[in-house]
């Protein structure tokens, strides 16, 4: 017999199957891990979740394309389906209470939320899984209808932060405490605190354990975005958001070497998010990453400064936007390595 394998070994095997695009091999790995005695929660989080983390990191590092990420996610979803259909996995009768899990509006990365959903079900919670990109209005309608003990919100992509804040405030206004998680909130959950989320957890296991400890906070209704973020009173975020299309046209106007319209639209999105959070580093980090991606594609990054200058000219009346753009230019000039 081979010695007992660690979750990491199974994750390595699943990673190979996922990279090969081999769905049935992937399912085989996960079921073998389960049959070797690893608990369902451990397979979900330490094998499937670990592979999903690697996929995300590979995308950030530009080692896989966006379609590879979709393919990996599709395979991992099927793996989860197969795991839960395995006779060794039985869901207990829900005894803890009812919670809602949703991705914030515009957020497509549904798998981290799905993992939390299944872990909570395994631990005896009744879970309503609203899936990816849930508009606030639909989330609220659901809360009023079902009255959950808590809403868990997932956001992976930084530009979803304003939408996340809106959702947090709306849920709390409906008297429901909010737990947030996902890379968008920062490695230590800094944005979760900034936005007044009731709870932040670094991963699904920590979230499940926190929920099972009980004594959930009781948020006070009536808070508004500007209460958490007084700088929003200058309306620069609203201004940039409303003029996004014009800004993209202006930033792509210089012509030769400027980033594509889609890439520029993302750049403007990051600028708006940096204004929302008043965090220059969020914008600079994205720029450094973009320059790095362009470089690995063998494209010159010379268009980025030109695009920033065009944006600065368009936004010369907005002091915070000028500051954020200047910080971005400085980061490009310093050739800061992209965040890990």
């Amino acid at each position, binding site marked *: 017999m081979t010695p007992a394998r660690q979750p990491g070994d199974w994750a390595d*095997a699943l990673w190979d199957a996922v990279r090969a*695009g081999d769905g049935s*091999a992937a399912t085989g790995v996960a079921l073998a891990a389960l049959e070797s005695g690893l608990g369902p929660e451990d397979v979900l989080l330490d094998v499937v979740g670990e592979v999903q983390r690697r996929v995300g990191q590979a995308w950030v590092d530009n080692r896989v394309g966006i379609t590879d990420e*979709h*393919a990996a996610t599709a395979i991992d979803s099927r793996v989860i389906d197969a795991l839960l259909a395995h006779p060794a996995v039985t869901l207990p009768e829900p005894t803890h209470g009812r919670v809602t899990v949703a991705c914030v509006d515009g957020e497509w990365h549904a798998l981290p939320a799905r993992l939390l959903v299944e872990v909570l079900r395994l631990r005896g919670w009744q879970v309503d899984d609203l899936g990816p990109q849930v*508009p606030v209005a639909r989330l609220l309608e659901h809360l009023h209808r079902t009255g959950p003990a808590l809403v868990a919100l997932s956001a992976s992509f930084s530009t979803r932060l304003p939408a996340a804040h809106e959702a947090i405030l709306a849920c709390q206004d409906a008297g429901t405490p909010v737990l947030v998680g996902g890379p968008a909130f920062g490695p230590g959950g800094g944005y979760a605190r900034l936005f007044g989320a009731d709870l932040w957890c670094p991963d699904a296991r920590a979230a499940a354990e926190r929920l099972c400890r009980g004594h959930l906070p009781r948020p006070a209704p009536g808070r508004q975005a500007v209460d958490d973020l007084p700088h929003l009173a200058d309306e620069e975020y609203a201004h940039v958001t409303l003029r996004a299309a014009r800004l993209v046209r202006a930033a792509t106007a210089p012509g030769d070497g400027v980033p594509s319209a889609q890439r520029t639209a993302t750049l403007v999105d990051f600028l708006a998010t940096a204004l929302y959070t008043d965090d220059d580093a969020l914008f600079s980090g994205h720029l450094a990453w973009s320059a790095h991606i362009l470089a690995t594609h063998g494209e010159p990054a010379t268009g980025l400064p030109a695009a920033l200058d065009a944006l600065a000219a368009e936004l010369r009346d907005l002091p915070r936007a000028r500051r954020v753009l200047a910080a971005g230019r400085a980061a490009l000039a310093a050739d800061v390595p992209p965040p890990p």
Partner: protein
Amino acid sequence: MTSPAAPADPAHGTGDGPPWDAVPCPLLLVGAEGTVLRANGGALALLPAVVPGRPLRATAPDWLISAHRHLTGRPRGVTPGDGDIVCGPVGGRTVRATPTPGPDGGVTWWLADDSDDRHLADALRHERDRTAFLTELSNRLLASLNLDRCMEATAWLAATHMADGVTVIASTTDRTHHVTHCVRGGEPERRALSLDLDALPELGLALSGHPPSARGIDPAALPARLLPPGMGPVGSVRLTPLPGHGRSAGVMLLLGGPDRDVHGEQERERDDVTLRLFAARAGAAMSAARLYAEQAAITATLTRDLLPPHAPRLEGVELATGYRPSGDTERIGGDFYDVHPGSADVPEPLVVLGDVSGKGLDAAVLTGKIRTTLHALIPVAPDHRRLLDLLNGALLDTTGDRFATLVLASVGHDGPALRLRLTSAGHPPPLVLRTDGTVETVATSGTLLGVLPHAEARTAAVRLAPGDACLLHTDGITEARGGPTADEFFGEERLRAVLAECAGLPAEAVAERVQMVVAQWLGSGRHDDIALAVLRAPAAPRPGRAAPP
């Protein structure tokens, strides 16, 4: 400031000289050794026990004696401040005393009757507390349209502000009562209880809205299961009806511990007003939540069959679907799909995807009608043209000026490959994605449904080799308006380009990729309903790769 008219001669300390009595403020002069030297008429009226010539400590109230001792006990020359001003009760009134030390070690106490000010300040503070409480109450109660949440908020607020323990019982039409408990400092707990109201006539009356105001009841008459878990001995119970929108929303039991009489306190009258306001708001909130729940339940029942179905697993076929209604709050719309898995009579599974003119609930109702009709027509499904003609006839008779477009896909097997028969009735033609990234438009077309007396359509046969995929979609994708400049259609070219990038991906990944790109294209802009379905022949297994460890 110096002490007024410091006495030249302690023997004249009776205090009836003109300068002292002329001072329009009660004054008390206490010598360095603690004897009351002088007191004017005002002071004697306020402190009737004080006798000039006798020690202060024998005649004045304790709080003044202690303040005087404190003041004279510290080193000379320390200037008295606001902290030396003292207040205390004297026979039902409140007196304020402000000291001014004299140069000889004596102290002049300036007295004032503070009762009225104190009373007003108390009343103001009480009103402010009540306003703050009622504001918090409104915020918390109006926050949720969910009955359980409203009851939790009611119980928690009452336990925090008004009682040691609270039980809230919702009115109901059956015998099961929804009950929420909360003890002070604890968390609300929900329970469902079956209550025999004949045995609890007072509670039964209150639950039906009588009597209309709060009243005390005998704690011994209350069954233990109506008490919050963890609640100690109960000394008093106050039964408070919660009126709501013309009917009773429920009742609230305010419970006091043995040391606390929840309905016998001095400020009962004032508390009564607050309690009535509380009960009215809680009752209104619970009643609104109940109405919302009733309406939501009706809506859910009526629209259940209009929701996009979960795609069933089809043997040997990868199938992924996606749906996004135009309205943020809606879950249904004018786009639809359906999957009929096949049966003994009609073995080929049939996938339908379509679009009804218009948006929202009206359009959704028509999609329900079409799906039901199609379900009944499944026996003729092998003949797409006949199916469409029958459906067209049914729609002509019933839909008024509305029309529909749809595409039918019958799925047959040919070894590991799939043999599709595709028919469009006025619908955007399906696209086929080959494993090499080629995207083909399927040559099928036909008339839209519900307009012309007879439906015409041309069916196309398509073979999907393992790994090939076929996309059925509605025009919500190609007509999505947005992009970097916010005013461009997504268009078929972009759709084909996105598909080309998805060559070889699982059906779910293709569906997700297309939806995500379109969602990014739309940004926060308004959009039409969007539906899509991806059919794929599973890729051949690749033996020898990525075996389990």
